[in-house]
Each structure stands twice: as structure tokens, then as C-alpha cells.
């Protein structure tokens, strides 16, 4: 009864048991009873009305935000007080902490929901095949707004080219670095890890000015320069992620390969990397998703232009994020709207890559990539001794097998 949860005969017997004992009342103990829900709702209502009354007096603090800012502490205090009176102090504190924590999660999710609505609401009206295929060529920003708003095609092409080149440079470098840290090792392992950490904390704009100083001053603005900057952003992210994934690969597998007299590179190439494949895909895609949305380093590398430039090696290029940034600063509403649309396209791209990472990463359960937070791949602590979490399933089995 240990690791046989999914074997069919157990499943069957379980169902038989289920029928036999269906009369038994199953208990799933809850600390929070219906009466407690009533208390919670009443407290919410009471604090709402209190603040509503006070708010009418304090007209200065206007707007929904001010209301919520006052409502939350009032509710928390009232809830604590009510529970203190009705139950013990411990219950009150426990519930207080519980509501604070739940509120925290709610506040956290709120911007994401609002952002998504915002981007779609503002960007969708203008989105059309026309906008996706046209460029800004010939668009005059100073004239009366209206007929000619142009499109985002040049930025879309630019973004894809820049990110593709950045990935082509950054990902192999990142994989090799991670393999060096985790598989090859040597005197420099620790310091390389520290350096990768330091790089992952380096602001994106620093990557931009660096590429400007080392490349653009000699070879001028180009999509390739932007790609170099993005590669610098991509490199530490993917390296850390890959390293975490490689750590999860069991050492038995490596030893088995060595015992079969496989050369080192074969062990890595044919055993270690394939085992970690889904986790690798996730970490790579997350790196790409993060770098695709960068704006700051593009300002001083690709510079931006209005026309289609499909050649990333010569002359300024455009990117979706940079286009948004430039458009929303313009004084014409229709041009600002185009900036929204460009941001929407960018958001959809990031979201798509993100979902892809999630799906591919969750494919195989045993590889350790699926259940964990994607962001754990950008974990940065050097010499991180954090072990991968045990999944809930493992814990369950521990308990059940007495």
C-alpha cells in the first residue's frame, strides 16, 4: 500500500469498499464552520458600514483605493475583536492571521487581473489584420489624428528576430554553463555560480548600456545589438534554472552511465539532459518569456525606427515593447491606442510562451519540473542547498505506510 496508488486492482477494490461503506458519514474536519462564515460576513458588513460613514466625513480621502485602504484595517480589527469575545484569544489571533494572509493573496492577484483586463480592453479595439501587417512608414505624428495610424508589423518582426538571436546565443551558453557548474565542476564552480547570481541581479538597463559601450559605439544601432543585450539577460536566468533541473537528476543514472564506460560528454548528452528535458524546456521558455518583454535595454541598442527592417544586422530595428513605450508618449490618442495594441500583442506572446512552458514542463511527473514554481528556476542563491520539494503525494504515502 505504498506506491501502488495508480495500480488498477487497488483502484477496483477501493471502489468496492466505497460502495460497501457508502452509508458511513465521512468527516473532513474543518476549523471554519458555517457559523464562522456568518461571523465573517457580519464583520465585513459592519466594517464596511463604519468606513462608509466615516468616509462620508473624510471626503479628502477620495476614491475606491482610499476606501479599501481604510476598510481593511477596520475589518481586521473588528474581526479580531469579535472572535476575541466569542472564542479564545488564540482563535482570534489565528483567524486574524488567516484573514491577513488571505487578503495578501487577494491584493497580490488584483493587479494581475486588472492588468489583463486593462491590456485587452485598451488594445483589442484597434487590433486587426491591417495593424498586424502594416508598419509606421509614412505616419506623421504631428498631424491631425485619424486615418493613418500605421501598424506594428515592423516591431513584431524586430521582436521575433531579436529574441530568436538572443536565444540562439544565450541558451547554448546557459546550458553549457549549467553543465559546467553541475556536471563538470572544478575549482571555479563556486565562483561561476556567484558570478551568475550577480549577473541575474544586474538590471536590464545595465545590460543595455553595456552593449552600447562595447558594440553600438563601434557598429552602430542594430537588432543584433539588442539581441546581445537580451542574451545577457537570458543567460543567468536560464543557467540558474537549468542548474536546478540538473540537480534533480538522480546520481544513480550518472553512475550507471559511467559504469557502462560512457564518456563524460555522452553521459551528459544522452542521460542527464534527456532525463531533465521537460524541466529544461520550462527554464528555457521562461527565460525567453522574460527577455521578450524587456524594454529598457532596447532603447540604447536597437534604437527603434518606423519602417520595416528585416535585417537585424544593419540599421535600427523596432521591438514591440519599445514601440509601446514610444507610442504612449505621443500626444495623439490614436497613436497611444496603437501603443496599447502593441502591448497587447506582446502580452499575448508572453502569455503564450508561458502557457507552453507550463504544459511542456508538467508533462512528466518524475522529472521534478512539473509541480514546482517556474520561478524557482530563477533561484539565485549561490550554492543553493535547497532540496526539491517533496510532493504532497510522497508525503501521503509516508503517512499511510505507517
Amino acid at each position: 500500500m505504498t506506491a501502488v496508488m495508480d495500480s488498477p486492482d487497488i483502484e477496483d477494490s477501493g471502489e468496492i469498499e466505497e460502495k460497501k461503506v457508502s452509508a458511513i458519514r465521512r468527516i473532513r474536519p474543518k476549523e471554519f464552520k458555517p457559523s464562522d462564515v456568518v461571523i465573517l460576513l457580519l464583520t465585513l458588513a459592519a466594517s464596511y458600514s463604519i468606513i462608509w460613514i466615516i468616509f462620508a466625513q473624510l471626503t479628502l480621502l477620495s476614491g475606491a483605493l482610499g476606501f479599501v485602504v481604510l476598510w481593511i484595517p477596520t475589518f481586521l480589527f473588528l474581526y479580531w475583536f469579535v472572535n476575541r469575545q466569542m472564542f479564545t484569544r488564540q482563535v482570534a489571533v489565528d483567524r486574524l492571521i488567516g484573514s491577513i494572509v488571505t487578503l495578501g493573496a487577494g491584493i497580490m492577484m488584483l493587479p494581475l487581473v486588472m492588468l489583463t483586463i486593462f491590456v485587452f480592453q485598451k488594445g483589442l479595439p484597434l487590433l486587426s489584420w491591417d495593424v498586424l501587417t502594416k508598419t509606421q512608414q509614412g505616419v506623421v505624428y504631428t498631424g491631425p489624428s485619424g486615418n493613418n495610424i500605421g501598424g506594428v508589423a515592423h516591431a513584431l518582426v524586430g521582436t521575433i528576430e531579436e529574441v530568436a538571436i538572443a536565444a540562439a546565443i544565450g541558451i547554448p551558453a546557459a546550458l553549457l554553463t549549467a553543465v559546467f557548474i553541475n556536471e563538470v565542476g572544478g575549482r571555479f564552480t563556486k565562483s561561476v555560480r556567484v558570478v551568475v547570481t550577480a549577473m541575474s541581479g544586474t538590471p536590464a538597463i545595465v545590460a543595455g548600456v553595456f552593449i552600447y559601450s562595447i558594440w553600438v559605439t563601434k557598429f552602430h544601432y542594430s537588432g543584433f545589438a539588442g539581441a546581445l543585450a537580451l542574451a545577457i539577460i537570458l543567460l543567468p536566468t536560464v543557467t540558474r534554472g537549468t542548474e536546478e533541473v540538473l540537480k534533480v537528476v538522480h546520481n544513480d543514472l550518472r553512475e550507471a552511465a559511467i559504469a557502462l564506460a560512457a564518456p563524460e560528454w555522452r553521459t551528459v548528452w544522452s542521460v542527464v539532459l534527456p532525463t531533465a528535458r521537460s524541466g529544461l524546456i520550462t527554464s528555457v521558455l521562461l527565460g525567453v518569456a522574460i527577455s521578450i518583454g524587456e524594454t529598457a535595454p532596447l532603447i540604447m541598442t536597437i534604437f527603434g525606427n518606423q519602417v520595416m527592417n528585416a535585417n537585424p544586422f544593419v540599421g535600427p530595428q523596432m521591438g514591440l515593447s519599445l514601440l509601446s513605450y514610444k507610442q504612449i508618449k505621443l500626444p495623439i490618442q490614436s497613436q497611444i491606442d496603437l501603443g496599447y495594441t502593441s502591448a497587447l500583442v506582446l502580452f499575448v506572446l508572453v502569455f503564450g510562451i508561458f502557457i507552453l512552458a507550463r504544459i511542456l514542463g508538467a508533462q512528466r511527473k518524475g522529472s521534478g519540473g512539473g509541480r514546482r514554481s517556474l520561478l524557482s528556476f530563477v533561484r539565485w542563491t549561490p550554492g543553493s542547498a535547497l532540496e526539491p520539494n517533496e510532493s504532497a503525494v510522497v508525503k501521503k504515502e509516508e503517512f499511510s505506510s505507517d
Partner: protein
Amino acid sequence: MTSELAPSPLKLANKRSNEDRLFRGVTRGAGLATFVILALIGVFLFIEALPAFRSQGWRFLTNTGWQTTGAHPQFGVLSALSGSIIIAVIGLIIAIPVSISCALFINEYAPDTLLRFIPFKNFLTAAVDLMAAVPSIIYGMWGFFILQPHMVGLEKWLSTFFGSLGIFQNTSGAYTSSFFIAGTIVGIMCMPIITSLCREVFSLTPSGEREGAMSLGASRARVIRDVVFPFSKGGMIGSIMLGLGRALGEAIAVAIIIALAFPLNFHVVQAGGNSIAALIALQWGAGGNLGTSALLAAGLVLFILTLIINMIASRIVNASKMAGR
């Protein structure tokens, strides 16, 4: 064989094949390349920043203006540096409680499934990760067009009731484009990073101690306070420091919101402010060759600052790990 010879360990010669030596060489090369890149960042920024340093000398660190053209250029990074720090601190004040709460909620409170079929915990984790991947330009636009109008009311209230504290003073009557709004957006942008890392650290709390506390009658809040927090202290500090690094370096969202103002300013709810990253983004291409050089110099300052913070953070984390084990 004489008995005088002390036994010495056999020296094992492990002769690697050529392909393995190539493999090792290539991977080591990649590893060492990261050193080279980091060093190059420092060196090249310094070289390109030299004209700016020559022009201003040490005053670059103490000047507040940004006059890079004309016969008597006068510029310095002080107000931008202090602005970066103000924004980052505001951001962290907002982000830390929310992030830690959210991480605790996901780890300790959220049910695995909601209504029996929504994988609630996984969903929340994915949402937090997605928030981290949302481009900063979108945060900036949202902050400028949606959040700012809401924030103004709060700012007015703060300046009315707490204006005497100095930092909430508003002398101009303009409340938009302030440090407070920029800091709030930066805080929101830091939240997913801090949340994700804290959650990871919390989930590593040994179940033995957790159950030990529960078996003594500890409530959930108690378990958090007396088991989860002490265990996760180092990791929490580390993730906050990482958040600080991100907050200091955020350029675009701040550039969209803040109205660039060069005098040293500590009035956080008042229009106008400065930050290194936003300064570079906003002033790029303006101010001539010396201006560009000055911006690169500012970039170098930012680079060194974040480098130091990251080094300290990793030290703290490592030290607390040693103590914990």
C-alpha cells in the same frame, strides 16, 4: 619491500579521452565566459564613462543637476541615486507584507482544490509566475493610466494628515508622477519575485518540526511564527534583497510614471523625482556625447550598487543556512 615505507595512497591516473577533454574545455570556457562578461561590463562602462568622470571628478557622486551640454557642464548622480533608493524602499514596504502573506496563503492556507476540481494551489502559483513574466512596459502603462488616478486621492490624504512628518509634505500641489506612485508600481512588480522565492523557502520547512508543534496544540498562526519563520529567516531576507535589486534597477515603469526632476527631493507624494535607471531611459539620445557618457557613468553606479546588494544577500542567505543546519 621494507617496513619503513609508510603506506601511501595510490595515485590514480585518470586519462580522459580527447572528446572528453574537448567537452570539459568547452563547458569550462562557457563557465569562465560569465566571469569575462561581468568584468567587461565594469571595464567598458568605465571606459565609456571616463569623459563624464573627467568632466566632473568626484562631484559626479555629489552633484544633483544634469546639465551635460554647454560650456560649463554640471551633472551628478546624487539625486538619481537617492531617488532609486526611495523608490525601492517604498516598493519594498508595499511588497514585503503582501508577498509574505501571499506566500503563506499559498503554502499554509490555500486548499489544494477549490470546489473539488479547480487546482487552486497550482493555479495561484502559476498566476504569481505569470505576474513575474508580464513585461514592465505593461506595468508602467497600467500604473500610469489606471493606478495613478486612484493613488492621487490617497496621496492627498497622506499629505493632509501626515504632511507634518516631512516626507509626506506636498509643496507644489501636484500629486501625480510622484515617488509614491512609482514606488507602488515597482513594489507590485517585485511582489511575484519575493512571493515565489518565499513560498519555495516556506515549503522546505521540515515536516517533523511542523508536526511536532501541531501535536503540542499550536495553531496555524503559531506554527507559522514559531516554526516556519525561524526556519525561513535567511531565505526570506535573501528574497527581499533580490527584490531590492530588481526594484533599484527598474527603468521603464518608473520612466513612464515619474516626472524627471533633478533637485534632491524627499517629498514622496509630490510630483517629480528621479532614478538612475529611469534617468538613463529618459535621457538617452539627449545631451550630446558628454550626456551619453554621463548616462553610462550612472549605469556603472547602478551596476556596482546592485552587485554589492547581491553579494551581501547571498552572504546572508549562506550564513543563515549554515546556522540552520
